[in-house]
């Protein structure tokens, strides 16, 4: 396949620009170290991590009891047991 120089140049520029883009970070805190199966499950639940090319950093936080908490910038996705207990407390407060 012969690619003309203009197209070649365009492709190069595109790749450069993509590489130059700062990579988005996602911090994942878990109560226990995640194995590969858990990571796959996590990617399934948070599909945008893979699709939008996030750099995922895994950390341990035993105070979560179980589950994970994902922080992306100022946004937080709470899938932890601690978070669920907090929600339960709020729900019980509203009900009673």
């Amino acid at each position: 396949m012969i690619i003309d120089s203009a197209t070649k140049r365009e492709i190069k520029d595109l790749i450069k620009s993509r590489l130059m883009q700062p990579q988005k970070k996602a911090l994942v805190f878990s109560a226990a170290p995640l194995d590969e199966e858990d990571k796959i499950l996590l990617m399934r639940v948070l599909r945008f991590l893979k699709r939008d090319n996030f750099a995922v950093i895994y950390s341990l936080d035993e105070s979560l009891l179980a589950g994970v908490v994902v922080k992306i910038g100022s946004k937080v996705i709470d899938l932890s047991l601690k978070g669920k207990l907090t929600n339960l407390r709020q729900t019980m407060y509203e009900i009673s």
Partner: protein
Amino acid sequence: MENLGIDGKLMLAQLINFVLFFYIFKRYIAKPFAKFLSQEKEKEVQKQKILAEMQQKEEDLAKKQEELKKKADKQYEEALRKAKLDAERVKSLIIAEARSEAEQIVTKRAKQIEEEKNKLYAQVKDKVLELSVFVVNKALSDFLDQDARKKITTEILKNSSKTIKI
């Protein structure tokens, strides 16, 4: 007549003297004196008349004074009666206002107490829930080992059936 000691000439002279004296007395003393007396009498009558008139006027004045005093007394009593009525009315108004204010204060206070009670209840509820969650948290962190945490994490990820978008 001479034997009796009566002198005719002397008698005549006495008589003339008497007549002259009478005439002079009547003309120059009695008449003016009578006139003076009648004038004095008239004056006296007039004085009496004036006195009577003044007495009458005095009586009239006293009567009028009495009437005015009665009128003033009546007006005073009327004013006093009105003032008493007004005072009663004002007193009733003040009492009614005070009652109304007192009721408002009582109602407001009851409402405040109710609000404070509810607030306190909410605070207690919050504290109890906080304590309960804390106890559960503590219990779970002591109870769950690494294996259990991992299993629960896997379960949570599996049960998050819908995908989460950012």
